[in-house]
């Protein structure tokens, strides 16, 4: 049975590696400016993790094959170098490799979190709520009206709790269920949660960030390809979590201006 285990181990290692090696599952296309760094990290880590996984299963299989069902009286042997080799291998090989990945990975992290948005980035406010996202554009006056939680009236589509009756800045604010952005322009998303914790995840944009009630967080990104992409919630927020999504609509610059004008008219 030891030999059978060895064979099954190798089979599992090969079968597990197969979908990766043959690119059966490819990352969704990257439409961001910072994603290349993340993708390259994933690629490098996959190489290391993959080799470690397959290597360990094969070594386990080889030893199980060789050292089960041994002939009566076969001598016991000790791995050359003993525990010292194991410790050194762990520190040197795995330790430095893995820490190197960590150091290299900082660049991708910094591009997302340690660089400020450009001054001409378009500011769009995003509100996450049970179970939809709403996005607010400041409108022609480039000012956002204040948010009053006690004035929220969803039946009347006042999702942000704006007070246009009394506040001029709120009157031209554009509220949309879709995140409409122009291509190749930096967008700064100002995020807040209306009720509980949510998260913002666009796979193709390689961004993910939680909405934390009580905190005003922000994300910035530049979409580089026109199209419609899913925004999904990745923080369990209640029964509708599975259906909490919106679409990011990346348009050409002129289509974007046309859309803004249309919305302002409504």
């Amino acid at each position, binding site marked *: 049975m030891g030999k059978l285990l060895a064979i099954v181990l190798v089979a599992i290692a090969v079968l597990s590696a197969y979908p990766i090696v043959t690119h059966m599952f490819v990352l969704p296309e990257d439409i961001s400016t910072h994603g290349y760094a993340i993708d390259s990290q994933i690629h490098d880590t996959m190489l290391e993790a993959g080799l470690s996984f397959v290597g360990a299963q094969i070594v386990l299989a080889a030893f199980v094959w060789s050292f089960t069902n041994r002939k009566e009286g076969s001598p016991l042997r000790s791995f050359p170098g003993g525990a010292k080799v194991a410790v050194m291998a762990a520190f040197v090989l795995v330790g430095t490799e893995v820490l190197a990945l960590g150091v290299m990975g900082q660049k991708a992290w910094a591009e997302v979190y340690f660089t400020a948005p450009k001054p001409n980035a378009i500011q769009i406010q995003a509100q996450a*709520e*049970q*179970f*939809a*996202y709403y996005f607010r554009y400041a409108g022609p006056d480039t000012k956002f009206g204040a948010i009053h939680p006690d004035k929220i009236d*969803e*039946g*009347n*589509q006042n*999702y942000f709790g704006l*007070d*246009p*009756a009394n506040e001029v800045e709120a009157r031209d604010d554009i509220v*949309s*269920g*879709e995140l409409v952005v122009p291509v190749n322009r930096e967008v700064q998303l100002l995020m807040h949660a209306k009720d509980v914790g949510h998260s913002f995840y666009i796979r193709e944009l390689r961004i993910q960030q939680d909405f934390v009630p009580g905190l005003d967080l922000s994300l910035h990104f530049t979409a580089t390809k026109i199209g419609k992409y899913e925004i999904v919630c990745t923080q369990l927020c*209640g*029964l*509708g979590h599975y*259906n*909490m*999504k*919106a*679409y990011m609509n990346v348009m050409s610059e002129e289509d974007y201006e046309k859309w803004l004008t249309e919305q302002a008219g*409504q």
Partner: protein
Amino acid sequence: MGRKQFVVAGLAMLVLAATSKAGPPAGGTVSGKVTYEGTPAKMKPIDMSKEPSCAKMYPTPPVAETVVAGSGNSLGNVVVYISAGAPDEAAPSTAAVFNQKGCRYIPHVLVFQVNQELKIQNEDQTSHNIHPLPKINREWNKSQPPGTPPISEKYDKAEIFPVKCNVHPWMHGNFAVLKNSHFAITGDSGAFTLPNLPPGKYTVTAWHESYGDQSQEVTISGREAKTVNFVFKAKPY
């Protein structure tokens, strides 16, 4: 009339009296029109982009039904009912049906009676979550996946309160649970009629979800038709 016929007629009248419903069948009518003054807020089209299975059912996006304004400043979706002066009535055996279709509530305002069966149906391909928000009745919150049987509920106290779908934030409606059968809901024309009112002094109340409620007293004697009109002050936002 002979004595035997007299007894039969008397018995017949007794039977008739015993089996007839509370209140004589024919009576007065209160009717009128509900209008608004001022400029109502413009109803915005509903953004259903997060639910493509519903969004695709509309060639142009529908508008919200909070304020249904008709020609001549008429106001729809106003519940007009007798709030005082009429006795409580037992609930009818038919159910009041509330439908979820195209990610909207149909009707937007559902009027029914205390202890009447409320039947909620989901005709959409997506799961809805009905969450009525009463203050004095029992609050509940139920999911209704597509293809599951209708939900059956009832309310034992009179109250008017909102209903929302947790999953689709734009879905809002109202339940008006009333104590008797004297109610009407205005359409685009703003007109309403409350027939079959026995003689008495009544309070007629008109309720609108944004503009509040108003009441007027009216007295009916015999088979007369009285007119009661309501004018609500519209809000521009």
